[in-house]
């Protein structure tokens, strides 16, 4: 993993850059992975690599070049390529300037024990899980990874940022001979505190659940979503409408609805990168310190998240949510917290005369972005709730649901929240009990 010496290399290159404005970004990752299937470890790997971006502005012509060569010469060459490309570009009439930022706070998301977590420890954890799985006549597959990431951002407007984070991620699918499966995942900053068996047991218990799966009719059901499923909805809402690009272009379900009630009054969503369980990289890919943003407050649309480009167009300030320089997706929140309530998952089940318990969704995709209508499947642990008890497995069903409507129909939220990793985001999300949730035959 590249250390902070890259900052000086970038500063030297910026001094020699012929562009009007120059920005360098280096994201470097050292990553270790143990992969297992059929109750056996079949791959141990380590990978160290970096991505370096040079973004330049020549007048209103903006270009980006990318490499993985952090040497002084490699960085200079990258700058030359970016400048060559910029001269061939058309003007971007909406471009004004890169952004200069003060030093961000030190990253609290780096844990040396996680970064140096030995492969043998990962193997020992998997051996313990596989031992339990074999005893229960189950077959396990999954991954256990630990990594360290550094991010450096330096530009010609005085920005100089360097930070590090570490992370562990764990996934497990347990399968029974009858084809039923259970699933669990976990993530965090401190691998030494990771209770892997507690996470694994959730998957093992679901795969071991006895009884013939019941096939349900299409209809509207009361559902209890585990945090993984709830987080999937949350992140898809973020992709569709919490980012400054979608808001500015009026492609967001929140466009022109700020200060209006769009979700139930029990829903509050924040981008909270400094949350003590999330501890996201304290600045974004433009070097802007990440800010806490309340996106939805008591169900009322409050604000989106921005990079500098769309913030200027929207007449606001960057919230520190820029993506890498060559992205065209636009900013979106990566460290969201969905506030919990005062319920427990046991309370949710006991208070449900008839409903469905959902572990996670599979292959969600949009059908109507402005209505936030998605489709997908339930998977790896779907159960029938009858008279306040989980009674039978359910044949997995197709989801056909507006996510906004689901977030309008939330009856209960758990006080327990889990840290859920999805698509580069880390989210802190509770269990949700939702009425009138549309499911059909798969």
């Amino acid at each position, binding site marked *: 993993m590249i250390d902070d010496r890259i900052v000086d290399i970038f500063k030297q290159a910026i001094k020699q850059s012929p562009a009007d404005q120059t920005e360098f970004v280096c994201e470097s990752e050292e*990553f270790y*992975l143990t*992969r297992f299937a059929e109750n056996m470890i079949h*791959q141990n*790997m380590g*990978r160290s*690599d970096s991505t370096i971006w040079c973004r330049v502005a020549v007048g209103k012509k903006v270009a980006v070049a990318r490499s993985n060569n952090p040497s002084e010469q490699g960085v200079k060459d990258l700058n030359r390529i970016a400048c060559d490309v910029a001269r061939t570009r058309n003007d971007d009439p909406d471009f004004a300037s890169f952004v200069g930022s003060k030093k961000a706070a030190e990253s609290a998301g780096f844990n040396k024990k996680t970064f140096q977590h030995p492969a043998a420890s990962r193997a020992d954890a998997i051996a313990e899980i596989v031992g339990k799985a074999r005893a229960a006549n189950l077959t396990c597959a*999954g*991954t256990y*990874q630990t990594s360290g990431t550094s991010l450096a951002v330096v530009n010609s407007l005085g920005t100089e940022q360097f930070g590090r984070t570490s992370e562990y991620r764990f*996934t497990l699918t347990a399968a029974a001979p009858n084809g039923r499966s259970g699933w669990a995942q976990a993530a965090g900053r401190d691998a030494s505190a990771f209770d892997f068996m507690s996470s694994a047991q959730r998957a093992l218990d679901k795969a071991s659940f006895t009884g013939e799966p019941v096939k349900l009719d299409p209809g509207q059901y009361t559902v209890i979503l585990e945090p993984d499923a709830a987080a999937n909805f949350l992140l898809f809402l973020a992709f569709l409408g919490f980012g400054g690009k979608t808001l500015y272009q009026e492609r967001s379900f929140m466009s022109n609805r700020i200060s209006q009630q769009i979700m139930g009054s029990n829903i509050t969503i924040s981008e909270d990168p400094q949350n003590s369980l999330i501890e996201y990289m304290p600045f974004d890919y433009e070097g802007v310190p990440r800010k806490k943003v309340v996106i939805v407050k008591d169900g009322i649309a409050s604000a989106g998240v921005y990079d500098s480009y769309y913030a200027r167009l929207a007449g606001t300030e960057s919230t520190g949510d820029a993506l890498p320089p060559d992205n065209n997706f636009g900013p979106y929140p990566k460290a969201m917290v969905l506030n919990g309530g005062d319920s427990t998952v046991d309370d949710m089940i006991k208070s449900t005369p008839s409903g469905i318990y959902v572990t996670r969704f*599979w*292959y*969600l*995709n*949009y*059908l*109507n972005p402005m*209505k936030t*209508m998605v*489709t*997908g*499947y339930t*998977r790896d642990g779907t159960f029938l709730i009858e008279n306040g008890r989980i009674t039978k497995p359910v044949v*997995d069903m*197709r989801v*056909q649901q507006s996510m906004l409507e689901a977030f309008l129909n939330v009856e209960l939220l758990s006080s327990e929240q889990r840290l859920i990793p999805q698509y580069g985001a880390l989210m802190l999300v509770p269990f949700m009990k939702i009425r009138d949730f549309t499911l059909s035959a*798969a």
Partner: protein
Amino acid sequence: MRADGWGNIPIVRMNNTNLMPGDKSLNDLVSMINDGIYMSAISSWSPSDDRSSFEFGCEIAWEIKGGKLGQAFKNPVFSGRTMEFWNSVAAIGNESSWTIWGTPNCGKGQPGQNARTGQGAAPILVTNVKVGAA
């Protein structure tokens, strides 16, 4: 087998999966239909984990009445069981309507890998497909 970079394990992937052309022009296909829907511009896809069923969304569809295109519809969707769907193909477009389509970001694996994939296809006429609007 493909990997999306030097640092990832190669995984089994569909690279270029082509539906060979048939013998009907697009106009022929439309004229064969008395009461149907012409789906165009796919925008969303969601197969089940075992690929036995699916639901896809499109940008636009047109009603077909008496062999002619009529009213347009936004956000149309269609869904079905994979084997039933492909066993219900009544006709396939010819080379004049055959195009190489592609996906630049086909995701697979843990940790995820992205790959470009290609799919050559022509319009097809399929019977008894469940359609709707999102």
